[in-house]
């Protein structure tokens, strides 16, 4: 083994000890707790509440991915095409949430969204009826998107930065109106960034715990929160394990799906060299 290879050992050991071993234990428990058998998966497959939790989690993650992509794309484009000064400012703005704890941000949203919060005060001031967002899945989604923005913006930005801005101009002078130059040239070249960002955001949003706990409602639980109550409140390690495995399988499935979609958009993406997968 090379010297560099030797240096990688600590990281390998850490990953094995802190990730693979616990995951293996959880998977094992899902088949053995409280007694050996498939009862935990039977529960997952037959219990409407449990299924609702899983489906809601996937749906929320999908929405979060689409919303952040739609919001982040123009933002990243602006960053990639601005002067260094503006670019730096935009970067700081997008990174600011990184420097604040997730808890603080969730509380900030509570202040804004609660019944007598900033949003309703503002609505009242312009004569509109108040809205009850706090305690719904919508509030969870809003909080999640804010946290996830940088994970979409940054991969998009780095791919867009590598796109030669002469290419859309070349398309224009060859007779393409602005929107065609964008759809035919710029968008395809930025797709690796979209795929990379979507993958990160989707996987991260499946695992959100603090945000749903503070902004959502127990009636609209997501997998991480359900998992927490199964394990730590009901001490049902096996069911918790089954939920965790369901999450893992879902991530794997999405990974595969995105990989196939990216492949369908072509080997092209790989050939550009900025492949996301």
């Amino acid at each position: 083994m090379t010297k560099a290879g030797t240096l990688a050992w600590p990281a390998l050991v850490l990953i094995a000890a802190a990730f693979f071993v616990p995951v293996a234990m959880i998977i094992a428990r899902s088949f053995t707790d409280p007694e050996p058998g498939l009862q935990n998966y039977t529960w997952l497959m037959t219990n409407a509440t449990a299924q609702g939790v899983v489906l809601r989690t996937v749906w929320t993650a999908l929405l979060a991915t689409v919303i952040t992509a739609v919001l982040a794309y123009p933002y990243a484009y602006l960053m990639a095409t601005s002067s260094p000064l503006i670019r730096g400012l935009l970067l700081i703005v997008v990174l600011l949430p990184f420097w604040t704890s997730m808890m603080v941000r969730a509380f900030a949203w509570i202040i804004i969204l609660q019944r007598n919060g900033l949003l309703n005060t503002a609505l009242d001031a312009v004569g509109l009826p108040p809205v009850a967002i706090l305690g719904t899945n919508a509030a969870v989604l809003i909080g999640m998107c804010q946290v996830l923005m940088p994970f979409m913006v940054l991969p998009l930005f780095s791919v867009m930065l590598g796109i030669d801005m002469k290419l859309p101009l070349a398309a224009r002078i060859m007779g393409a109106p602005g929107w065609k130059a964008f759809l035919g040239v710029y968008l395809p070249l930025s797709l690796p960034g979209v795929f990379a960002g979507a993958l990160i955001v989707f996987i991260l949003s499946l695992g959100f715990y603090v945000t749903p706990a503070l902004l959502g409602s127990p009636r609209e639980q997501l997998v991480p929160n359900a998992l927490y109550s199964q394990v730590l409140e009901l001490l049902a390690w096996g069911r918790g394990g089954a939920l965790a495995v369901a999450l893992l399988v879902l991530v794997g499935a999405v990974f595969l799906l995105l990989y196939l979609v990216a492949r369908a958009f072509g080997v092209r993406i790989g050939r550009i060299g900025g492949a996301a997968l």
Partner: protein
Amino acid sequence: MTSRGTGAALRLTEICKRFGSVAAATDISLDVAPGEFVSLLGPSGSGKTTTLNMIAGFEEPTSGRIAINDRDVTGIPIHRRNIGMVFQGYALFPHLTVGKNVEYPLRQHGYGRDARREAVARALETVSLSGLRDRMPAQLSGGQRQRVALARAIAYDPPLLLMDEPLSALDKALREGLQFEIRRIHRELGTTVVYVTHDQDEALALSDRIVVFNDGRVQQVGAPSELYSRPANDFVSRFLGESIHLRGAVRESGRGLEFVLEDSRADVSAGGEISWPVKEARLGAAQTMIRPENVTLAPLDGTSAGEGAPGTTGIRAVVRDVVYTGHSVKYVVECPSGGGVVRMSSSGAPNVSPGQEVGLSWDIGRARVLGERSVRTEADGAQVAGAVQSGENEERR
């Protein structure tokens, strides 16, 4: 192959472009005839690329008009100008094959499927790349990419073709080969070409006419031979080709105007002033410019220099450097009133070494007198102060 299309006439009328307080281009006026090959030549920051970008529509002029075939295109969006363009760095679409790249403009211009296939095949054939249709741009060499860019630009027979330093990224041998091809393609297609370059040899080799830019202004417009033998000012004479420059003055004599060389004691024969009659010049400080092939350099062995054939004159100079370049030998010379470059054919080149004193003689009929420091441009007659100073404003895109 015969000419496929007809070139467009291009007319720029008093175009100005300012970026904030910086003038990138000032009073650019130019008439390009259909089918003509015109180069915009100048150092970086001289305004040539800004001018090209305004023709393409990437920049709007601050004032002035651009007309293609008498149709005012100022304010017309880029995609409706019907222009072909070869970009610096090629700008091939990396996600499309060679064939799809060339097909792109045809799609945009509404060609049908069969017409597209035919035009792609023809364009690739024109640049001798028929076999590479299904390759990706990343799999091509620099020269091949350049050819694809050319094929893409000519595929839909645009009446006006813009080329922005298309060969600057290639090595010398490849560059000369492609120059030849660009000339051939221009002849075959009859397209009007506006070609931006900072390479004087390229401009001289390719163009019907050259527009010399400096400091955002047109310095001179003319055929290559005209610019070379009769540069309008100091900048043009120094930017295009090699020369020696000697300071002096224009004064009136009994027979009319004459040019007097400064420090005439540098005269080889020490026989007093060196002067010769000139036709048109402004009185006062001036300089004379002589091309290397019109100067004879000889070692000082007592007799030869300065006393050559009738109509020649000569001075003493010191050789600073001798460079052997194959077909000729280049001498860098210096004398009290100036200096520059002299070339002698290597077969007849005298064997002198740096530091040695030599005699220079030239045919006074081929010495060009230029106003010193301030000159008149052909374009507008305005004074261009310090034409020698290099452009400080960076070229913007």
